[in-house]
C-alpha cells in the first residue's frame, strides 16, 4: 500500500517536473536564445559595417 502511494507521489512529481521543464524551455529559454542570436547577428553586421563593409549598400 505504502509502496503504491510512494509510486503515485513520484509519478505526480515527475509529471510536474516534466511540465515545468517543458514550459520553461519553450516559453523562456528558447525565446531568450533566439533574441540573443538575432541581437548578436545585428551587432556582428553593425561591427562589420563599421570596420569592413561600410554603410549598407544598394540592395545590400
Amino acid at each position, binding site marked *: 500500500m505504502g509502496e503504491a502511494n510512494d509510486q503515485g507521489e513520484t*509519478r505526480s512529481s515527475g509529471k510536474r517536473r*516534466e*511540465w515545468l521543464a517543458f514550459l520553461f524551455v519553450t516559453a523562456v529559454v528558447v525565446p531568450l536564445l533566439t533574441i540573443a542570436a538575432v541581437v548578436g547577428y*545585428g551587432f556582428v553586421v553593425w561591427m562589420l559595417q563599421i570596420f569592413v563593409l561600410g*554603410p*549598407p*549598400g*544598394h*540592395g545590400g
Partner: protein
Amino acid sequence: MKIIAALWNTLKRPPVHISLGVIILVSFLGGIIFWGGFNTAMEVTNTEKFCVSCHEMENNVYQELQQTVHWSNRSGVRAICSDCHVPHNWTDKIARKMQASKEVWGAIFGTINTPEKFEAKRLELAQHEWSRFKANGSQECRNCHDYDSMDWDEMSDEARRFMEPAAERGQSCVDCHKGIAHQLPQQMGSVDPLLAGLVREATSVSLDEGETYFSAKSVDLYTDAERTEQAGVLQVATEVNVLETQDDSVKLEIAAWRKEKGFGRVLYEDFGQNISSAVLDKDIAQHGAMIETHQSDVVDELTGLPWGQVSVTLWAEKGAYLGNREALWETAGQTYRDACSVCHTEPAPEHFDANTWPAMFSGMVGFTNMSAPTQELVLKYLQMHSSDFVDAAH
C-alpha cells in the same frame, strides 16, 4: 547548479507524462506567439511615437521636419522617421536597431540633451546619414520616389534638365537634395574656411595711402571717420583706392558706374554691366556730397538706360582689404566648381555674359549650401570671368 542538473535530467529523456501531440501543439503555438511578439516589437520601435519619445528627437529634428514638405503637402502623403532613417532590408534593419544602442547610451548620458549640444553635433550626425545615403544610392528616398515612375513631361523644364541626367546615372538623391527634411548644419551656411582664411589674412595687410586694394568681405561704409553714420555697404572683391587712414578707419574712394534712373543706390563695376560694387543708402545716393560725377547720361543701347560714372568717397573699417584679387578669385572658382559639380557639369564662367550670370546663379544657388557672403563672391567671380571679360568667349 542542482536545478540545472535536474532540468537537464528531465530534458534528456523522452517525455513520459506529456504526449507528443501536446508538445507539438504547445511548441507551435509558442512559436506563433513569439514570432508575432517579435514583429510587433520591431514595428513599435519603427513608429514615430517611439522615435520622438526621447526629447532629443522631439525637440530638435521632429520640429524641423514639421516645416518641410515631408510633413504636410498637397497630396497628403508623409514620411515618418523610420521611412528615411531605418533600412527596410531585414539584415540592415536589425543592424540599425543594434546601432540604436548607441542612441540609448546617448540618451542616458545626455550626449545631446541641450539644443546647443545638438547643434554642435549636427554636422557629424548629418554626415553619418549622408554617407549612408551615398552608399545605398538614397534607397530610402527611392522607396517612394522612383526614377522609373517620374513623368518628365509633368516636370518643369528646369527640374527636368537636372532630373533626367540624374536618373540616367542613377544618382543618389541626397547628392543634391541635402537639408530637405531637417536644417543644414550651421557650419555649412555660415563659415567657408577658405574665405575665412582670406578675411583673416586681410586683417594684417597694411594700407598705404594712394594705393589700390580689394575688399576681402563686404564692409559697412560710413560718412564719418568715427563710423557713426552708415552710408551703405561695400561688396566683396571690389576695387578701392585708399585716400586716408585714421585710427581704425580708412577713407576709401570707389570708382563706379550707376544707373541714372531711380535712386542710383547700386554702384556697378563697369558701364552697362550689373556687377555690383556697393549699395548706398537712399539719402546718400541722392544727395551725398561724397559722390563726384565724372560722366553723365551715357546711354546703354541694349536697355536704353542712362548711366553715369561716379566716384564715391566714404569711410570704412580697416583690415578688410587685400592687395589683389587673385586669392579671392581662386577661392571663388574652387567653391563654384565644388558646389556645382555635385549635381552637374558646371558651365565655364565665360559661357555666359556678366548680365546673364545673376539670373543663372540665383536659379541654382538654392541647391548649394553656400553662405550669403560666399554667394556674393562667387557671383562676382563668375561675372568678372564671363564672356565680357574673356577674349576666347563664345
